[in-house]
């Protein structure tokens, strides 16, 4: 059973973050932005696919500030104070990779279906974010 601490530690590794705090902030930011842009139905469907401890992060993700941006990445860039848009995309890639590692292939496919198109691309890309250059061919 993956613990909350273990999950954060894995996010740190995937994102090459320097502290657990940064890992936790990233998870909360990404889930907050997803909640803002997903329909109520998609939100619920994804929630049901997630294992613990991701579920509790998903539920508790809330941030101060307004959120009237048109797309998820723009929102994340602003809320996360990222210096450039690709850094915000990277946050999604890291969190998606962390989820991909702990759900089965069937759930991965379902989860991707509920995401908006731009995030589908990031979700697909995130499968290669977890390993160093020596492992790609073997995994």
């Amino acid at each position, binding site marked *: 059973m993956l613990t909350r601490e273990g999950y954060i530690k894995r996010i740190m590794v995937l994102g090459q973050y*320097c502290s657990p705090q940064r890992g936790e902030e990233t998870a909360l930011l990404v889930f907050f932005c997803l909640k803002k842009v997903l329909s109520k139905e998609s939100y619920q469907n994804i929630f049901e696919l997630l294992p613990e401890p991701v579920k509790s992060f998903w539920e508790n993700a809330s941030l101060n500030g307004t959120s009237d941006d048109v797309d998820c990445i723009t929102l994340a860039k602003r809320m996360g104070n990222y210096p*450039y848009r690709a850094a915000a995309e*990277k946050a999604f890639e890291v969190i998606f990779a962390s989820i991909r590692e702990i759900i089965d292939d069937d759930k991965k496919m379902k989860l991707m279906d509920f995401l908006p198109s731009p995030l589908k691309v990031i979700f697909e890309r995130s499968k290669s974010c977890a390993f160093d250059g*020596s492992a790609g061919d073997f995994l």
Partner: protein
Amino acid sequence: MEKEIVATFRAATAKPDYLTTEKFDAMLGGWGVFNLGVWAAANVIAKEMQKGRKLKLEVTNEAYTDVDEIAKKAVKKLMECGADPANAALATAALLYWAGVNVQCGIPCPNRKLGAVTRMAAGIPSGRVSSIPTEKLNNKVSGFAATLAIYQALEREHLAPFDSKLLPLGIGGSPFVGHTAIGEDHLFPKLGQKLAKIGTRAMMKAYESAGMRTCRWMSALMGTAATLEIIHPDAYVGEEYGQFLVTRTPEVVATAAVEEAGMPEVVHIRGTNEEIKTACLVGDVALILKDSGTPTVVGMIMFNEIFSIIKEGASVGFGRAGGPLLLPLNHWVSAPSLALYLLGKGATQDEIIAIVQETMNGYFQKEDATVATNILARRAEFIERGPLTEAIIRATEPGLANAITKRAIYAYEQMKGGRTLTELLEDVQKRHIEAIAASVVKTMSKVLNKDIGYIKFKDVRPGAGRRTHKFAQRHFAFDAYVDVEVKVDGKVYEWENLLAKVAPEALLKGDKETMDALAAVGMAITELLNAGACSMDVVVCACMAAAMGMDPKEAAEKASEVANVMISMPSPGLKKATQLASDIMKGLDF
């Protein structure tokens, strides 16, 4: 707009060379410096990235990868710009690292390492850490200090965590040790961390003993690299040291080196504040250094300046030209290195421009830094055009246009009002010195965590009396006279002839109080001594004088004579610029 202002603006900016006292063509070969080559090579790499080339070392079954080919192109460009092959290899590896290339990937075949890839691209033999010099910080030492200390320790005591004589035939040197708990959980990390501490400590001692401030970054780097010459340089390690497929021996070894050197655990990228784990950085770069041949001191200066995109900068040892000081331009590669990093991360051109502009705030003299960066980018475009110089020019052109125009308007109004060139430049130089003092007060109060009330320069001129040669009497950089008053934490210090008398006496006597107080003003004096990297204040005034009818040669000579602090050395471009201003004026018919 008055013709004189148009003529002055155009003449001062007609060639990048006119806004500096430095000699750009000399940066292109012969004596070893190659910073324009770094700008050009960064463009080469950026263009390959935009073609969609794969910037990753992987264990693919092919003789050569995209990284090999890009490395060859970058090395070739650097060598065309005067870089020694070993320096070209090392600079290429550093640039590729910031572009996003991983430093190694490895199973027995293939086992690719970035430092070796670029070294082979340059066609040179491998080197040893003992032969790698540090960058020059007045003096320099070399990795020999780390290597010597490590081997002396190996001779003096037994450092492995077990009795090596117990290793039977067929086990020692095999995967039985190397790919199992014996090697990964015990031998490599435990021995590596011991050696790294010894090597790092020896480097720090060598720096101090040779009269330098310790460079923590270079000490940790050499300590780690020397260790990686001994232990398995890219083994996976036990889970207690880091996660599988992520953490290898370089980071584990570097963790000890970073601690020994007293480096911060986390460092940041200039302009973005992105965090990087210091041990990861040191481990990666040590692995590059270990494999990349034998660079020269100049090569190590460039290598170090490529790492000046780390915000902590010179306080930890990551280059010196990223700010806050305005160093001689042959050091400057921060902007292209940062732009390359951002491009590798996926930033757009507009985002790169905004971030490069943000980094200009990190200099004591923001306008001068903006102009200096602009003229380097423009000069680099003569060698290799590309997306990075384009972005950097876009980032700095508004600042340059604003800075030159403001000065041209001021000079015009002052001279129109009856001031002579001498009077104008005396006023401009005084304001220039005061502006530096104010900027240093603000920054150093934060850096030193002291209340620096003020810095007042009472007299700043050439001719401190150490030398009698008339050349030294004319040019500030060769025998600088400085009287200064500074207030630190409520106490006022007054120093006369600081550089020739007060500072050497205090240092040689071990007067810590005076030396500590000097820290508050030292940066401002260094900034004055470095003057000339950007000479726009002088050039604009001299061009305006020429545009308003003064003989161009006389305007240049008078400007050099009066502004003897702002252009601390003779300026070959100044006469050309004043002549051009005069020529342009004759051609304007509106």
